[in-house]
């Protein structure tokens, strides 16, 4: 199979502004910088690089010397944690943004679907938006006209074709937008996480459509956090980590590695509370302070059903303190705890920083995302509890619907009963093991 996409040492740098007020450059700032650059000029000549060492700016390499070859007809999934460079990679491939270094070679027509409904105008009718959106995505008017009925049928919006899309329900809107994009006929289709919208039935339909496109021998690149979708749609996968290709290979293998995380990640996720997103924080005393929190699954922040979860805290203690206890709670929505408890009492003999670790084994929570509440205080039951500090919704973890060896959680023992149709109903009995 010929190579259709070839990336050679591709890097993409973003400059992150740290200055207050953020947002856009103003002419004033820009002029001030110009003046500063001129003053800095001697430094540049004498070899000290002032480029990129600007105090207000920090470099961030979204893609870092990335090389990759994708063959024709390949259906490639791109997985990785947030910030791994997935979206940047797609943006570079679809020519929205230019790489800072490196070379990209693409054979064939690329269509990218990074967002559902790009360019939809709320005032225009469904019909008008089909034409507009199609043109934006690179279809010719003749193509759109030819596919018009198919698009409308796929989106199931026949009755509302001449209604402005601002009157559409969000579901209809998304269906129409996806329908247009799904009827592109590119050689290479690039799809970002766009299926997180719409109802379950429509999501299935969309996945089916992408599957068809792949089956026609077109090359598909697909980014998703939904491993079920990835494993259904793709045969190969790229695992990105900090802008580099960590693994490129068969989908199963890559998913396993992705979910499994990396040994190096496992204990490195403890981070200062200030850097973590949390819902609320109460401080009642500064005797003991929670400095850092880590929610460490046996596989990154993901935990297999029935697996092991480790909570790690770094506590800063002002002076010797007795009768301490750590409280924790797990909630699916940041509000209602479904699981929790207090540690037995312990004490710290002197001022210093201490690491505390709680290991939960056999975590039998339904597969979903959970957030964590933490507190440090005295008393080991709700009645006598006195918190020094409490943090709600700090950190989160995923429970995955697999066991350690990647078998599903539940298995069915089943058998179908059969009879000649006489109007009687035959029960099929299934047993859950």
């Amino acid at each position, binding site marked *: 199979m*010929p190579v259709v996409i070839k990336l050679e040492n591709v890097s993409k740098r973003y400059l992150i502004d740290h200055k207050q007020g953020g947002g*856009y450059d103003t002419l004033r700032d820009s002029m001030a910088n110009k003046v500063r650059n001129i003053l800095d000029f001697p430094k540049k000549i004498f070899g000290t690089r002032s480029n990129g060492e600007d105090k207000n700016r920090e470099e961030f390499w979204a893609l870092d010397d990335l090389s990759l070859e994708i063959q024709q007809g390949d259906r490639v999934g791109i997985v990785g944690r947030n910030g791994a460079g997935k979206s940047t990679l797609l943006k570079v491939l679809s020519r929205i943004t*230019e790489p800072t270094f490196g070379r990209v*070679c693409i054979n064939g027509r690329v269509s990218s679907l990074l967002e559902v409904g790009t360019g939809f105008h709320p005032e225009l009718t469904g019909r008008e938006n089909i034409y507009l959106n199609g*043109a934006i995505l690179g279809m010719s008017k003749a193509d759109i006209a030819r596919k018009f009925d198919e698009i409308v049928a796929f989106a199931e919006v026949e009755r509302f074709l001449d209604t402005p899309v601002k009157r559409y329900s969000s579901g209809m809107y998304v269906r129409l937008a996806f329908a247009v994009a799904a009827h592109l006929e590119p050689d290479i289709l690039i799809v970002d996480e766009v299926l997180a919208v719409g109802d379950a039935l429509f999501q299935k339909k969309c996945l089916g459509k992408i599957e068809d496109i792949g089956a026609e021998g077109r090359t598909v690149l697909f980014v998703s956090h939904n491993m079920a979708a990835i494993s259904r749609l793709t045969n190969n996968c790229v695992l990105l980590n900090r802008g580099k290709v960590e693994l490129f290979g068969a989908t199963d293998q890559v998913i396993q590695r992705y979910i499994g995380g990396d040994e190096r990640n496992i204990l490195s996720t403890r981070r200062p509370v200030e850097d973590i997103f949390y819902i609320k924080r109460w401080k009642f005393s500064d005797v003991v302070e929670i400095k850092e929190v880590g929610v460490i699954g046996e596989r990154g922040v993901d935990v297999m059903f029935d697996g092991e979860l480790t909570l790690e805290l770094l506590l800063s203690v002002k002076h010797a303190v007795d009768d301490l206890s750590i409280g924790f709670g797990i909630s699916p929505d940041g509000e209602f705890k479904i699981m929790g408890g207090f540690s037995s009492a312990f004490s710290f003999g002197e001022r210093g920083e201490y690491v505390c670790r709680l290991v939960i084994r056999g975590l039998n929570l339904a597969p979903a995302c959970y957030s964590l509440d933490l507190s440090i205080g005295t008393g080991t039951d709700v009645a006598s509890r006195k918190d020094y500090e409490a943090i709600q919704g700090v950190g989160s973890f995923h429970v995955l619907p697999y066991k350690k060896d990647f078998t599903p959680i539940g298995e069915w023992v089943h058998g179908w009963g059969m009879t000649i149709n006489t109007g009687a109903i035959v029960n099929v009995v299934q047993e859950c093991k």
Partner: protein
Amino acid sequence: MKSETLIIEAGKTERHYWRDLWRYRELFYFLSWRDLLVRYKQTSIGIAWSIIRPVLTMVVFTMIFGRLAKMPTEGNAPYPILVFAAMLPWQFFANAFTEAGGSLVSNASMISKVYFPRLIIPASSIIVSLVDFFIACVVLAIIMFWYGYIPNIRIFALPLFLLIAILAALGAGLWVAALNVKYRDFRYVVPFVVQFGLYVSPVGFSSSIVPEKWRFLYSLNPMVGVIDGFRWAILGADLSLNVTEVVLSIVVVLVTLLTGLFYFRKTEKTFADVI
């Protein structure tokens, strides 16, 4: 596979840019069509705005410059026609420049999600103003008919001056559109330029009242050549065209357009990162 190879290399301009531009010509059409549709859908009296604005401005200018300030007209042309003939290109330029200047920012979501030659956006935004221009032309025809004023053969030179006005709006629009992406200050620059321009262009008065020693500086404003050209083409026989003025106007317009194109192309690739 009848494929073509696309090579994206850091820091190199793409070879296929102009061919891509041609390939996306339908998008140009659709974007103009969208702007027109939206314009007339959102406003309840729609098309009437394209008539009301120039007509009211003409009335006010005729009152102020013609009646109160008693400024001279050109030849024997009625003052309203003198004003309206200038109003046509000026309002076209002002609207097109404003639209083109803000076009990239108002289409930001498209720019950050889809590839196409970005040049299409400012270029297509001018079309709405062009349609307004043609509607206003009809109004001018009615006014001329009312005054029994018949244009001569020179009217056929009008497309040339319109072309200069289009290129002027595009050139200035490209500059501002690209600068606007990075420096939002230009949001405030455009209305000022348009307002200021109205007074340094011969819209409410005739160029003949400008003293000779200021004439060159005055003609550096490319709209002077365009407006005088319009008057020359519409008002008829007893007017002579100042050719140096028109040539100067064309030169200024071309310089603006070419530098604008250059700057736009240079910054185009960073739009998605900055916008």
